[in-house]
Every structure is written in C-alpha cells, then in structure tokens.
C-alpha cells in the first residue's frame, strides 16, 4: 500500500513541475512567436504555439532603426567595461580581506558591511551623483556599480578555501605577494569570477532605471530604457490599434500586412533577452555554487 501512495505522489509532483516549467518558459516562447508573425495578423489574436504568417519584417525594421543600434552599443559597452572593472576591483579587495594576518581586517569588513543595513536612501544618493558630476554622463552606468558588499564576500569566501600551502610553496620559490596573486590565486578562481561576472553583467544589461532617471542625453540611453519608454508610450497606441483591428477583422488581415508598434516592441524585447538566454546555461553550474557560497556567513 505504501508503495502505491508514493508513486501517486511522484506522478502528481511530476505533473505539477511540468506545468510549472511551462509557465516559466511559455511567455518567452509566445513573445518569440509574436515577433516572428506578421504584426497586423497578430492583432487578431488566437496566436499560441507557432507563427501564423511567418515574417522577419519586424526584426528588419527594428535593426533598421539607428536609435536601437545606438542603444545597443551603449548597453554592450557598459556591460563589458562595467563588468571587467567590477570583477577586477572586487577581487582585489576580497583578496586583501581574505588575509587573516591583515591588520584592520575586521574593521574594513565592517566598514563595507554597515551600508547594507542602513542606507541613506535614494535622494542623498542622487544628490551625491549630481555633485560628482556623474549624472548625464556615460560613467553614471559604470562607477556607481563598481563594488558590491555581497560580491566581495562571495569572492573572499572562495579565496579562503584555497589551501595556504600553495601560497607558501610559491613564496619559497621566490614569488612576491603580487606574483602569488597573479600566478597562483587568479588561475584557481575561475568559477567564482565567472559567477560574479554573470551577476554583474546581467545587472548591467538589465538596468533601465539609471538610463531613465539619471540620463537625459538621448544618445546615452541603453536598450532597457528604450524598452521602458516604449512600454509607457506604446501602450495606449497599440491597444487602440488592436481594438480597431479586431472590429475590422478579416478584411484588414487580407489587405494590409506589416509591422505594428506592438510587433516591433516584441522584436526589440526578444533581442534584449536573447544574449542572456545564450550565456546563462553555460554559467549555471557556477552560479548555483556561487549562491551557496554567498550563504556562508562572512
């Protein structure tokens, strides 16, 4: 009797988890389908699993727009530069803090921990950015994101796991502190550096807030901010067009084809999400470990 009960549970559990997985995946799939379907046709609705009138027109139009190229360039630049600087600087700091013999180690750890439990709030932070002349420059994307307490702790915990004997033997071989860091520590830190790069890279890629509130220069706007602006602007327009299409029904579908603001928006969304979906499966096994390391109390 016990055995049968177990398998019923497994069955229900499995079915539930399949539904759950689909709810995670389907929204992305649907957007992909919508972006590959003729825009006017999509407005008729009842689009579920495959494009009804396949077209690459939406993508062609999106990529034809110089504004989007410019935004894409800003996003790529800030992601690459920001991530490289963030990971390098956090690693240097974490390595120093991992030295148990370092005088003042506890003080410096507390110094960077304190702001995580009490922060000044948004406005003093905003004024600070203004006073540092970062607002409305490209550097407002990079400099305020250079450090993160949690990332430093994760790297430090990892570095503390490297056996000290390795460093000692390198020292006997005549290596100095800096050479040890460069030739012994860094080559062993691949997994944790990959994890932090992913976290920070995604944060850079996904940040729309900075571009919306701290930047007014149109040529400095990243892709996510562009999408946010389309979200607010296109909403009213596209729903009124859709209403018209549904009332007009078939005739419109037969006579006119082409992209709509909505289908363009979906194409932009796909190219916004695509790079992340490409990278993250490869880094997955690292970041799962990374989160666990982060949970080890500093």
């Amino acid at each position, binding site marked *: 009797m016990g055995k049968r009960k177990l398998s019923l*549970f497994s069955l229900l559990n499995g079915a539930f988890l399949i539904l759950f997985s689909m709810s995670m995946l389907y929204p992305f799939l649907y957007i992909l389908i919508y972006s590959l379907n003729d825009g006017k046709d999509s407005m008729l609705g009842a689009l*579920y699993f495959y494009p009804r009138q396949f077209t690459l027109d939406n993508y062609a139009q999106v990529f034809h727009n110089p504004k989007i190229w410019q935004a894409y360039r800003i996003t790529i630049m800030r992601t690459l530069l920001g991530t490289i600087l963030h990971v390098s600087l956090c690693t*240097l700091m974490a390595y120093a803090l991992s030295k148990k013999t370092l005088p003042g180690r506890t003080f410096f750890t507390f110094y960077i921990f304190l*702001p995580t439990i009490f922060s000044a709030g948004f406005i003093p932070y905003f004024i600070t950015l203004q006073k540092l002349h970062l607002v409305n420059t490209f550097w407002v994307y990079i400099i*305020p994101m250079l*450090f993160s307490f949690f990332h430093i702790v994760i790297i430090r915990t990892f570095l503390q796991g490297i056996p000290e004997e390795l460093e000692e033997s390198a020292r006997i071989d005549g290596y100095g502190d800096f050479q040890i860091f460069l030739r012994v520590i860094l080559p062993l830190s691949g997994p944790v550096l990959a994890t932090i790069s992913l976290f920070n890279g995604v944060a850079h890629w*996904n940040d729309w807030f900075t571009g919306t509130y701290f930047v007014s220069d149109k040529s400095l706007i990243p892709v996510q901010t562009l999408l946010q602006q389309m979200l607010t602007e296109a909403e009213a327009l596209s729903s009124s067009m859709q209403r018209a299409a549904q009332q007009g029904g078939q005739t419109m579908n037969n006579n006119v084809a082409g992209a709509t603001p909505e289908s363009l928006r979906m194409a932009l969304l796909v190219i916004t999400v695509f790079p992340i979906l490409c990278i*993250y499966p490869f880094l997955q096994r690292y970041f799962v470990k990374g989160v*666990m390391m982060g949970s080890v109390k500093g």
Partner: protein
Amino acid sequence: MTAHPLVKRIWRHKLFYLFMLPGIVWFFLFSYVPLFGIQVAFRDFRFSGGFSGSPWAGLKYFHQFFGYYQAWELIRNTILISAMKLSVGFTMPIVLAILLNEVRNLRFKKVVQTLSYLPYFVSWVVVVTLMQRLLTPYGGPVNDFLRGTGLIQEPITFLNNTTWFYQVILGSDVWKNIGWNSIIYMAAIAGIDQQLYEAARIDGAGRFRQMWHVTLPGIRNIAVILFILATGSLMSAGYEQLLLLNGPATAAIGSVLDVHVINSGISEGRLSYAAAVGLFQSVIALVLIVTVNRVARKISDVSLF
C-alpha cells in the same frame, strides 16, 4: 630606531592596503557621503549650498509628509504589498525546493531547475512587457484561451484594474523570483545528513513525515536568516516593479513610498521633502530588522548579527 611591531606588520601588508584602496574610497563616496547627506531632510536643500550649506528647515518636510492627505494611504499600501510579498514570496520557494527534492530523475530535476530561474535573469521592464502582451484583453493569449474554453464570456482587463492589481503584483513577483530564491534551500536540503532520512524510514516514517520531521527542520536556520533579511524591506515594496505596473487607474491601492520618493524627488525636484520620506522609510526598516533579529535570537538561537 626600531619600528613598532604593528607598524611593521602593516608595512608588510602594504600591497593589500593598495588592493583595498579603490574599495575604501568607493564605499566612502557612494555609501558614507550619502549618509552624511541625510541632513538634507532637515534642510531647505539648494544645489549651490550642498549637503551642509543649505539653511536648516527643522522638521518642516516631515510635517509636510504626514500632513499630506495621502500619506497614510502610501504607508498602508507599502506595508500591505510588501507583507503579501513577504508571506507568499517567502514560502513558495521553500515549497518548490521540497517538491524538487522529491524528484528522483536527475535530468528532469535539472531541467525544471534551469527553467525556474530563467525569469530572474530578465529585467522588470521585460517582465512587465511580457505581462502586458500576455494579459491584454485585445488578442492576448490568456484571454483568448479563457474565452476559447468557455471559462469567461468577456475578456478580463488584468492590468490597470484595481480588482486584479494585487494578484498581478504578487504573481509576477513570485514568477520572477521563485526559482532563484529556492536555490539556497536546495543547497540546505542537499546538506542534510542522509542517515537522518534512513533513521526516519526505519522508524516507519513515510514520505510526508520525512519531509515534516527531517527536511523542514534541516532548512529552518537558513529560512530564519532569510526571513530576517526580508523584513528589512517591509517599508519598500519594490520600486522597479511598481514604477512600471502602477498607473492612474490603480493609484489608490498601488501608490507606495519608494515610488513617491522617486517621483516627488526626481520628477518634481522636491529633494528635501523626498529625502524626509526616504529617511522615514530607512529608519523604520532599521528598527524592523533589529527587532526581528532580536526576536529570532530569543526563540530560535539563529540571528544575523
């Protein structure tokens, strides 16, 4: 002249101080300078004067906030939304971790896990754009499906609608974060001694009793710590999501403190007033986190600091 031993030790570590220097400067500029800038909440802030050069205003801006006819509505909405997120958003990842732990097929488990944290890696702008497309009454697949199956006659307006606002806020929050937040519980479960399960089986415990008596106690400590951390944000309901999802139609139940600070501060330029509201938020958050930490230490021996 013989140097003091501590000075010698510090000198020996000079390279490591150099490594820390950029970080020390950065945390000073971006964390401690703004802390010093909290005083703008008590001043009539002018850019020319800076943090300490503007005239004092006393509690004027705090009075202004509490005298604002919508102040209590803002506080109520903030607490209500974050309490809902705390209760649901906190328990769902635990449930997911336990259910995943019961899966015996490793490949299936891996696939479900991978898909579960997919949404965590996209921005709120993307999530809200997805929702708008999926839930729209004009040709959105959710309404199409519900009408197709005859469950509803008229399409439902899920967004910009007070009837569905909290469900939408909660649902999207859980959808985005559930997988990610479950990772830590998965790790805790993986760390449970297998002998405990064996012992429980020998004592005749079925699958549910094992969950109840072995798995749940095994993740208790980590759950308490995460709960303490989460209470710190009871005064903030998630500004990114609410900036994007709240509109005029849902303002009465969807306006929260974080968004109020951003709107009045940046969009309207009332910096001192917004700083006062933000300070009120920060202080309550600090009190909450210290209190919950103390309570947790008393009842369960687990605490953050």
